[in-house]
């Protein structure tokens, strides 16, 4: 092959590969569009600070070194209601092993949240995200959504929808320090 032909082939190969890369990138981005913008496994968990029903503030980064079981919920949401007792039970098992639960209520009144927490005797911190600030930070869609944050402050898993008690236990096991 002459030099010119070689050069030409090289140019063609590079142009075609750039084009293929662009098309593949666009295809990948489009087909995973819904997932891409969310906080997902492997990401650093965005830090936040919310106040619980007793007026105490909880900052996620204060729990570094502990696993955080971060649950987003609402009083009206049936699956949330169902999994709360499971979380409470497992909390009793795991809180001494360094697993913390933060239950983030999205946008409801203090009255409703307090009522709910009393009804289910929740002993873990229940915090209110009145301005949906934290919800947006985590791009939470439908409730309930649970994120497992490991002691290093990294999201290990995102669970959308309801959990059984076994699942709750397994997940807590996962993020135990």
């Amino acid at each position: 092959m002459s030099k010119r032909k070689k050069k030409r082939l090289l140019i063609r190969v590079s142009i075609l590969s750039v084009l293929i890369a662009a098309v593949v990138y666009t295809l990948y981005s489009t087909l995973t569009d819904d997932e891409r913008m969310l906080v997902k496994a492997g990401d650093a968990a965005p830090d936040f600070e919310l106040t619980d029903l007793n007026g105490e503030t909880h900052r996620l980064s204060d729990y570094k070194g502990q696993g955080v079981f971060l649950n987003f919920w609402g009083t009206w949401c049936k699956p949330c209601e169902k999994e709360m007792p499971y979380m409470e039970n497992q909390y009793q098992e795991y809180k001494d092993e360094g697993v913390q639960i933060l239950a983030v209520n999205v946008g409801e009144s203090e009255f409703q949240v307090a009522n709910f927490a009393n009804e289910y005797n929740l002993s873990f911190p229940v915090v209110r995200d009145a301005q949906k600030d934290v919800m947006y930070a985590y791009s939470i869609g439908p409730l309930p959504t649970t994120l497992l944050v490991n002691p290093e402050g990294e999201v290990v898993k995102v669970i959308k929808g309801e959990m059984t008690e076994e699942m709750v236990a397994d997940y807590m096991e996962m993020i135990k320090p």
Partner: protein
Amino acid sequence: MNEITCKCGHVNPEGTELCLSCGRALSESAENRKTADVMRYEGMARRSQTYNLSIIDKIWNFFSSVKVGVWLIVITLIASSLGTIFPQALFIPNGTENVYYEERYGIAGKIYYVLGFHDLYSSWWYLLLIGAIGTSIIIASLDRVIPLYKALKHQRINRHESFMKRQRVFSSYSIESPEKSIAQIKERLLKKRYRIREEEGHLLAEKGRFARWGPYINHIGLIIFLIGGMLRFVPGMYVDENMWIREGETMAIPGTGQEYFLKSDGFTVETYQQGEDSEVFNNTIEREGAIAKNYQTDAHLFKREEGSIAGQQGELVEIQQGAIQVNQPFKFDQFALYQVDFRQDEYSSMSFNLTEKASEESVGSFTIQFDNPEKVYELDNGYSVELTEYYPDFSGFEDGEPQSVSPIPNNPAFLVRLFSPENPDGEVAFIGIQRNLEPLGENDYALEFAGVETRDVSGLTVRKDLTLWILGLGGAVFMIGVVQGAYWNHRRLWLKKTADGRLLAAGHTNKNWFGFRKDLEYAFETTGLDKPKDHQEENLNKKESADAKEENNRDSTS
């Protein structure tokens, strides 16, 4: 590589159709093809056509073909039209795709859904089509613009007679002084702003060459536009979020990284009114009823202190205030808020009187704010009401338990305990809209509905799109290119003085032969010669006179 040596001695690269120097046809096929086809790229070798070795070359040649490009356009066109048969998934209620099409459109709808046409424009194959068009644009343009540039740059003035004879516009004149005629024509063409080059008494007049670059410039514009479309997927370039905000509420604006907050002062709907608005609208208002005039949210924009984290009740600083209206988005930083939706008259509070049933006398009243209900409402004289439960969107009972299906106060209901001096332990009542139950037996006191407050909810879209400027640039470049190619023509006239003393005149334009003929007419006016003949026009007229109705007419223009 096989180079082609022309009779005139010039060495041309393989695949060249017309000698780059003198313009002689170099191959039999070039000789036999229509002049217009050969002249399109000045008879230059199109790179892609000269090699066919590796798979890369084959792919390259595939995308280089205009035929393939046109097919891609046509397929995209047909595919796009298929997507408009039934509404696309983004126009129908969210999450109902799997039943919507079949329920509405029967079997056709089901097929539509199964084939994925309900989400056609973001399907992988549609995107591949667009990608293929983009590839075709780049490769086909590269393959043509480079040889064309070379050919037009190295144009020789003196062309071979055979080249001139092949042109659509050509005449040969036997006259005494070709030099004089050439000078006269030159003078006239200069007035028409042709660029003239001369060489040994031969002349090339050229005008509007830059029109030839139009197609390539508009293709560059399209590529820039497509790149802009792709950049949307780069993180941070694009935000598309929705938010609902009630009158009086302050909410985080999604997509802004929790940096900005919005407070709504309220939402307004106005409709056109007869008597108030111009009377010319009366007929339409009568025919159609209420016609919306304005949708508006009045809002304040706040920025959170630097360095705050989500949820922190840091200080919010108001930085902007104004109205968000349709067609008048509220802009800040790189974001824009759009008025897109609303819900009117959502309950915000309800007032009740605590009434003694026997005397029908009120002993006190209170108001429940739905966004912040209180545990106990203390009334005077030892009366009080304790709120046991609040159900914002009451939907009925399940196992005796009242249920709420959403956090929105569409149908608020309450479980209350009414305390009075007579009943220090309280009486239990369940109250809601058109509902007043006393589950634990007859009460002495009842809550009487005393009024309701409502507020509106604004639906806003939060948008950030950093790709807009590049899309705008692409569009502008495209428009420049397309105008350049469409509104200007590349016209050339060759004049040659032959050895035996004849004057040869040949002309070519890439389009608008009508205008070109007018130029020629003007140029030859002072010479006393007829303008060079347009042979296509000639042939047609001959056929016309032979028999206007003859079938051959169809071929006359080709």
